[in-house]
């Protein structure tokens, strides 16, 4: 069992608790032991708070890093945004003495000190690099045969690649391989690397929804049974987006189930769908579940 401090962030616990449920129930089955640190706060958010003040963003992120250091644990994140913030700040503070000194001067006011002893990992890295495709394959009880899946990575698990170092920034393959390991089929589709647009949601919702729209068109065109991803913000855009796209000027009727990868993994490991929070999905996942039964 590998121990990790579970970093939930804001959106998973407070908007998408079924994603948290899947992670908590499924990851331990792959020998990932999740430990709660209740004082963890917002990462803080990389496409809002960082834009206002990078210095404040770094110092606030360092509070979370210190909490993990105090427990001697590496952090696992379930969200691309939390990952980008915590991995970036951890890397910069580890490698840049000037930044570290500046941040520690601020942290001294709350009796904390950043040391740089721990690592930050995205759940994608833990599954792909640490657990590995072969071990996942060996644990599959119920192959997801015949399920065609459109994989969406989300930007902030991949880029900036020089800092995040997870996969190729434009042609990643880790999540595709993790999907195929379950007996399902990751299908190619146009616009696969198109951003979900969360970053401009607050300013230009209309165009952001066109971004969501254009990806969903391609996913449907390839007759995918569902999309899968590992970021709650992308998840919200593609799931809630389908409801919002019914209106003018889009008038689009999409029915693409959105699955958080740990949910698919749980089903493949033989869990009963009733153990997971599928009833909380805003786009019904029943067609996928029926195909698996």
């Amino acid at each position, binding site marked *: 069992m590998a121990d990790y401090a579970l970093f*939930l962030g*804001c*959106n998973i*616990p*407070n*908007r998408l*608790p*079924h994603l*948290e*449920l899947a992670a908590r129930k499924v990851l331990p089955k792959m020998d990932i032991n999740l430990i*709660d*640190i*209740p*004082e*963890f*706060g*917002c990462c*803080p*958010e*990389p*496409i*809002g*708070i*960082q*834009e*206002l*003040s*990078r*210095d*404040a963003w770094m*110092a*606030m992120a360092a*509070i979370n890093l210190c909490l993990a250091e105090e427990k001697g644990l590496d952090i696992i994140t379930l969200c691309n945004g939390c990952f980008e913030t915590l991995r970036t700040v951890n890397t910069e503070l580890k490698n840049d003495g000037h930044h570290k000194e500046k941040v520690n001067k*601020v*942290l001294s*006011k*709350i009796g*904390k000190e950043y040391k740089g002893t721990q690592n930050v990992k995205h759940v994608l890295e833990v599954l792909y690099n640490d657990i590995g495709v072969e071990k996942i394959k060996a644990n599959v009880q119920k192959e997801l045969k015949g399920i065609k899946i459109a994989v969406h990575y989300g*930007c*902030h698990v991949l*880029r*900036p*690649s020089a800092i995040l170092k997870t996969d190729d*920034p*434009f042609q990643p393959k880790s999540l595709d391989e993790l999907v195929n390991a379950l007996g399902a089929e990751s299908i190619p589709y146009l616009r696969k*690397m*198109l*951003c979900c*647009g969360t*970053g*401009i949601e*607050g*300013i*230009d919702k209309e*165009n*952001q929804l*066109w*971004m969501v729209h254009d990806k969903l068109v391609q996913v449907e065109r390839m007759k995918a049974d569902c999309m899968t991803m590992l970021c709650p913000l992308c998840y919200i855009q593609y799931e809630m987006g389908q409801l919002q796209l019914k209106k003018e000027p889009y008038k689009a009727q999409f029915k693409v189930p959105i699955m958080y990868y740990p949910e698919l993994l749980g089903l493949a490991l033989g869990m009963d769908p009733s153990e997971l*929070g599928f009833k*909380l999905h805003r786009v019904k996942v029943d067609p996928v579940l029926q195909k698996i039964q």
Partner: protein
Amino acid sequence: MALKISSEFRKEISKLGEGFSINYCYQCGTCSGGCPALRYTKVYNPRRIMENVLLGFKEDTLKDPVLWLCTMCHACLEACPQGVKVSEILIILRNLATQIGSYPEHLNAEVSALLDYGLINPGSGAIQRRRQQLGLPEVPRPKVDNIKKVADETGFIKLTGYKPKEE
């Protein structure tokens, strides 16, 4: 109005974070070619922003709300053949814009939630009940005082004009 060209803004940016890389920009437009924000908003254009910095159009660049239409996907930074950290430079520009009070209104709500609750999405009673039904533990409760102290120490409270919520 005649625009005055100068190297002052470029020099200022060069001293901040990854800003020095802007000196390698030769305006090829690779950043714009792969930019989803340009494709969808039609008005955000990373090459144009780099050009305006190189020409020294500081005020026009920082006060233009278009600056906030980048989705931060970082495709430009990866694609640039000259190693210009385009999206990182954009963050520098947005930080400078914030200092002159030019940033989108909706971010104030995010700042308030962060400093009031320690979470930008603090949740509701309904979500707590749903979590209970799912057998999930209580939502994390960060030490807000620590976050506020750090925010104050870095000048973030003064910068954003944050006021604590009324009790």
